[in-house]
């Protein structure tokens, strides 16, 4: 990965939610600093309420930071013009339920000032891309299943062919097939050189597609680094391959044993990130304030 400019720069970002009387209620985010570079797929991880969505909303200007600075595509978060190059898929697809798929995409296309011809072409392309069945494209969204809503949600996020795509829980509510499609789509976006910021608590997804991840807990950054490096830190090696015959597995085990490997297990890959995640959460509970960030980037 080439060392290119940061698409998102977050410095010391904090967010405090207040109650009706203006008294601080929850500190949702505490002094977060991170950079996201052009062309990478960055995953924000964390249990529910850890501040992932808050971060995303702060980046989008839906919430206003209590402290800290945000630069996104070189502009401030409050600057609406940055949205020209951003695509956003909300946590649940908060779309207008009385519109059908075409109307939805047409509507969002208009918000990007696209011409009628552009909108039409782009809609068809995206609906094909997200694999929304043609017979359901004329139905109002209120009749859609969760998976279908998710697909149209992705389509609207990509209507403007954005440089930066922010996905909030992209795979939630999708069946395994849809899950696969979504991951392929993200990798495809990466291949096109787009920057993707996603947050999720489904670790397997993140592990599969993300270049780098950050784990948030209680509004604080706990772990950040390249996925492979973070996992490498563990004293284990994992071999993955397409499904082998039993004979072949046996043979490999023998080879490994010959090289002095102990505790050899050959099976489907485990969600090893899950282990890291659980460990981080566990540690955070035991040792608040601890931080394991492998690639420190100018933390102010």
């Amino acid at each position, binding site marked *: 990965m080439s060392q290119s400019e940061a698409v998102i720069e977050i410095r010391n970002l904090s967010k405090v939610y207040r109650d009706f009387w203006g008294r601080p209620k929850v500190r949702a985010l505490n002094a977060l600093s991170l950079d996201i570079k052009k062309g990478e797929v960055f995953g924000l991880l964390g249990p529910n309420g850890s501040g992932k969505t808050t971060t995303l909303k702060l980046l989008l200007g*839906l919430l206003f930071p209590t402290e800290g600075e945000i630069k996104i595509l070189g502009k401030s978060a409050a600057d*609406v013009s940055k*949205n020209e190059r951003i695509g956003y898929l909300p946590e*649940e697809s908060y779309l207008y*339920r009385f519109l059908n798929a075409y109307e939805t995409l047409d*509507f969002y296309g*208009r918000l990007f*000032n696209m011409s009628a011809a552009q909108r039409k072409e782009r809609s068809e392309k995206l609906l094909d891309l997200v694999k929304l069945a043609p017979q359901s494209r004329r139905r109002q969204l209120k009749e859609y299943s969760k998976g279908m809503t998710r697909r149209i949600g992705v389509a609207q996020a990509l209507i403007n062919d954005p440089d930066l795509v922010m996905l909030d829980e992209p795979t939630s509510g999708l069946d395994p097939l849809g899950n696969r499609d979504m991951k392929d789509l993200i990798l495809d976006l990466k291949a096109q050189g787009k920057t993707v910021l996603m947050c999720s608590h489904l670790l397997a997804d993140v592990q599969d597609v993300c270049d780098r991840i950050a784990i948030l807990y209680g509004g604080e950054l706990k772990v950040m680094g390249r996925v492979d490096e973070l996992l490498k830190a563990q004293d284990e090696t994992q071999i993955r391959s397409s499904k082998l015959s039993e004979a072949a597995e046996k043979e490999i085990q023998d080879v490994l044993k010959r090289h002095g490997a102990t505790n050899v297990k050959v099976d489907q890959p485990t969600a090893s990130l899950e282990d890291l995640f659980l460990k981080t959460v566990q540690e955070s509970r035991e040792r608040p304030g601890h931080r394991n960030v492998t690639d420190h980037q100018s933390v102010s």
Partner: protein
Amino acid sequence: MYFDPNEYLLNPFISFLNWVVVVGALTFVVLFVSMLNLLTTKGMSGIGIFFDELGGMAADLFQLSPRRIWALTRLTYTEAIRRKALAVFVVFGLLFMFAGWFMGDSKEIKPDQVKVYISFVLTAISWLTLPVVLLLCCFGIPEDIRLRSIHTVVTKPARRVEIVLGRMIGIWLIGCLVLTVMAIVGHFWIVRQIPADSQPLLTCRVPVYGTEMEFLDREGNSARSGVNVGDIWIFRSYIEGATKARARWRFIKVDESVLDSDGNLNFENSFSAFRSYKGDMTRPLFYDIKLYNPEKNLAYTTDPQPVNEFRHKLDKIPRKVTVDDVQYDILKDFVTANKDLLIEVSCIDREQYIGMARSDLFIRMPDRPFWMGYWKAILGISLTLLLITMIGVSASTMVKGPIAAVLTFVIYFLSLKDNHQFMDQLVFGQVQGGGFLESVYRLVMHLGPSAELPANPAFAVIQFFDWLLNNFLWLCRHVIPYSQYFNMPEFVANGFDVPLDTSIIPSLLVTSAFIIPCVVMGYFALRIRELESK
């Protein structure tokens, strides 16, 4: 005619000045409230945010995109239609199916009952479209925020002002659609309800009013008004018969255009008769009209004409009149060098009185068709809807739907003529019985409005709070629109065309005065607001 169109007469320059003041004041109030809001929530840094936002707003104004606004308009429109806003037509249909129940018998229709029919239709239409618009505009944005669908909009390049504008336009269009359909139905209903022989009553008279009116008392001296015959309603003033008492009008800019196609000058009046003794009741009271030109010392007096009370009485004066066997031309000989025409009315019967107000005598120009005035009235209603939409949408950017709806309705309610007048009286201390707390006290203690209150500290407190409330009301009074200018239906119901100068232009001005402050307020509120609130 029983309402006074001159009440609404405006001086163009002063009204423009007023307009500027009102717009400025409203905008100032809006910005001031916004800053206070920021100060209380954000502390001193609020001031910085305020000016940042102001700058951002200004910058945004140059980025407005008609296509985006139109997209949001269409969204609002589709939403309303798909959420069954048009169900209001069911109520409308029911109302008109059973309207006969409320209207009485249309077989024996009298001239002023036509007014009741027209009023009914126009009132029904405006009161039915009102809740539709009110609900749509007050619940649209809060619902959008609650369902967070607004997240997908504001994360696009859509400016928040575009959301406000799109909502306003979309809802107004819906309102206009509903209004148009109802108006068409209403139009046919009126025409169908009025029996064939009463159809000529459906017309739009075009009056030219005198600009000045003065009275002469019974000795012939100039007087500010005539005699009050003991009416509670001081609209009309009376002149005594067979004395030197007169009522005089001055019509300005009189030229050929005031004559009808046959060259007659048509005076229409709605004088009222008052008898100090009954006398011969079968004989009406009589008046005459004198045209006079002091420059040429010339006068022409009509034959005595009977008063036709509570109806319209038309007097045709031919263009060529004969005075002392010499023929004169009304326009050439009676209109003065300044193009003024002077008219004098006297009462003939001794010890009897004829009552008149300035608008009771006018030159009647050729009538316009009924539909013309009717649709102008509909235009008036649509302007009211626009006003409500603007207020409602901007209110809904700050508070939740139900509160916005109540707020908007209260503002609308207070803007109605009678209510606004009552508010004015309260503000200027013309209401007997004191302010809010004082009158509550009087009610509870069964004290009349003029009863003296004992002087003790408790009342000082009561009066102090009333004073505070009154000052608050004084502020509100300047912000609440005068919807008395949206009085087009009244003109049409009274059989008049809707005049440009006293109705259409003022109402357009009032509406436009609210556009900028409302948009600014709505925009500002959306900008400084985190769209996350539950």
